[in-house]
């Protein structure tokens, strides 16, 4: 993969994501946004008022999709910010401290990584019924450990290199070594992990909502819309197709951004 295709991939990803957000904003500004529950309009067919029809609670499907996509992006962004922050701090402490501290911190990371896929999130969602904040908590809880392991590995890789030694030799403070020597080196890899991670978080979030373990049904989410669509798969397939395609585009654009960044990094290092 050449740098050019990596750049291309990054650009396509950014464009797709930006385009989706743009469409959402246009709809919010000029469209007929209606996600309040209105039992008079249940299951209405598409009309000028409800472009794609209304769902079982009488809400406009298109508005629900826009709202749901917003919720997904918001949760994805918040979870990635929180878990990468925790992971960076955890990994830096672990990698720089070494010894017994490193061992204890890494065994804790191992425990969190021991659960396959979204199982830990499912387990937590089974016991708490989360709101948006709860959802962010659950998903952060089950995804920070990956960042911690990644950052620790990077710290170990660079810790004994000459430039760190040089910084030490002119008495650079510990904080200075971390902030002006280590973090800039680790940053690109965290960005890669964050954009791929955001895609993963959004899949996890919609999976939980699809399973009925997520936000309450009055908050429209893409996963929950698809779940409704499955029960009406014969008469209203549009409830599966539209939220699904929006979700697919969001995920593929985040993946493209991550892969583009990562290949760009690799080429830059070559």
């Amino acid at each position, binding site marked *: 993969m050449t740098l050019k295709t990596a750049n291309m991939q990054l650009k396509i990803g950014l464009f797709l994501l930006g385009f989706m957000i743009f469409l959402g904003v246009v709809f919010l500004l000029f469209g007929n946004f209606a996600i309040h529950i209105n039992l008079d309009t249940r299951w209405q067919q598409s009309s000028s008022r409800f472009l794609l029809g209304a769902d079982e609670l009488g809400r406009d499907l298109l508005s629900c999709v826009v709202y749901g996509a917003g919720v997904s992006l918001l949760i994805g962004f918040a979870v990635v910010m929180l878990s990468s922050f925790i992971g960076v701090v955890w990994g830096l402490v672990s990698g720089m401290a070494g010894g017994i501290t490193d061992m204890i911190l890494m*065994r804790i990371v191992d425990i969190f990584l021991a659960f396959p896929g979204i199982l830990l999130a499912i387990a937590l969602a089974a016991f708490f019924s989360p709101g948006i904040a709860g959802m962010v908590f659950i998903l952060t809880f089950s995804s920070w450990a990956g960042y911690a392991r990644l950052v620790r590995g990077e710290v170990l890789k660079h810790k004994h290199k000459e430039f760190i030694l040089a910084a030490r030799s002119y008495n650079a403070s510990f904080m200075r070594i971390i902030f002006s020597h280590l973090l800039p080196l680790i940053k690109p890899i965290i960005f890669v992990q964050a954009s791929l991670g955001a895609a993963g978080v959004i899949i996890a979030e919609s999976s939980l909502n699809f399973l009925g373990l997520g936000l309450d049904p009055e908050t429209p989410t893409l996963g929950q819309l698809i779940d409704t669509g499955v029960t009406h*798969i014969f008469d209203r397939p549009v409830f599966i197709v539209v*939220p699904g395609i929006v979700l697919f585009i969001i995920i593929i654009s985040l993946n493209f951004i991550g892969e583009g960044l990562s290949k760009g990094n690799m080429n830059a290092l070559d």
Partner: protein
Amino acid sequence: MTYGIINPAIHPIGTIIMKRYIVKRILLLLFLLFAVSTMIFFPVHLIPGDPVVKILGEGANSEDVERLRRDLNLHKPLFHQYLDFIRRLLDLSFGKSLFNNREVMANILKYLPNTIYLTIAAMTAAILISLPLGVLAAFKKESLLDAAVTFISSAGLAIPNFFLGPLLVIVFSIKLGWFPVSGCEGSKYIVLPALTLGTSMSAFLTRITRTVVSLELQKPYVLLARAKGLSEFRVFREHVFKNALIPVITTMGLQFGALLTGAVITETIFSWQGIGVLLVESITRRDYPMIQGLIVFITFVYLLVNFLVDLSYFALDPRIRKEVQRGAKL
């Protein structure tokens, strides 16, 4: 070359170190089994409010509340409850379901065959789709076919299975009428669930296969085989195939976790009566012992498979074995 995971055997380390590594891995596995169980025990007790009231609802009479409290073992001090929980894991009963009063393990074993069946079918589908595509893309690198394969695998990685599943149902069950919509009575019922579950894995495997095979193709032994005048097919079958197989197999092992949690969602879509459906049903019934037992069980299976994949490095590759033996002599 290590593919994503650190391969301790690739270094000339000797059998003693290899044994030490295996012992270390076993200790880590035991530690993780213990820690995971502990972590699954506590959430029930961290729920704000009384879980018993939560299960029965606010209006329940006090007799029922007391009985359920006893059934859930919640009347004892927390530490006793914890010991009981661990004891039940050790005697492999995993506690009792609140729903049908049978042992959790008995319930799991009843649903497990369907999940195993689905998982194997999904893996088979993934292999059948991804190996040919990955190999072809590697042989015809930077062709139109390669670009198409790359695009398809990107799409396969990005499509969530709870969207893909219903999509396949719309096309193949409702429009074409080839396969049933849901259920699990016969062999026709497995096709769509297996495709749904296998897609993300096959997308991943296609990428790995393409990378691994194209790396092998750059090696001198391939040049020699081609110089001998072998056809591309024989170059692949007699030379590249075996060398490329190991990383592909280990990747499959590592993807097993994704397959397990994917099964939860796939089974729900198709009402496929496996442990995923059991988990989701237990969650709606607030059958806490059943939920805890299932989460612990699935995680245990996942950890065991990962452990075996790690060890299989030593068994699969004669080069690694020799490397280890040579290391022992040094």
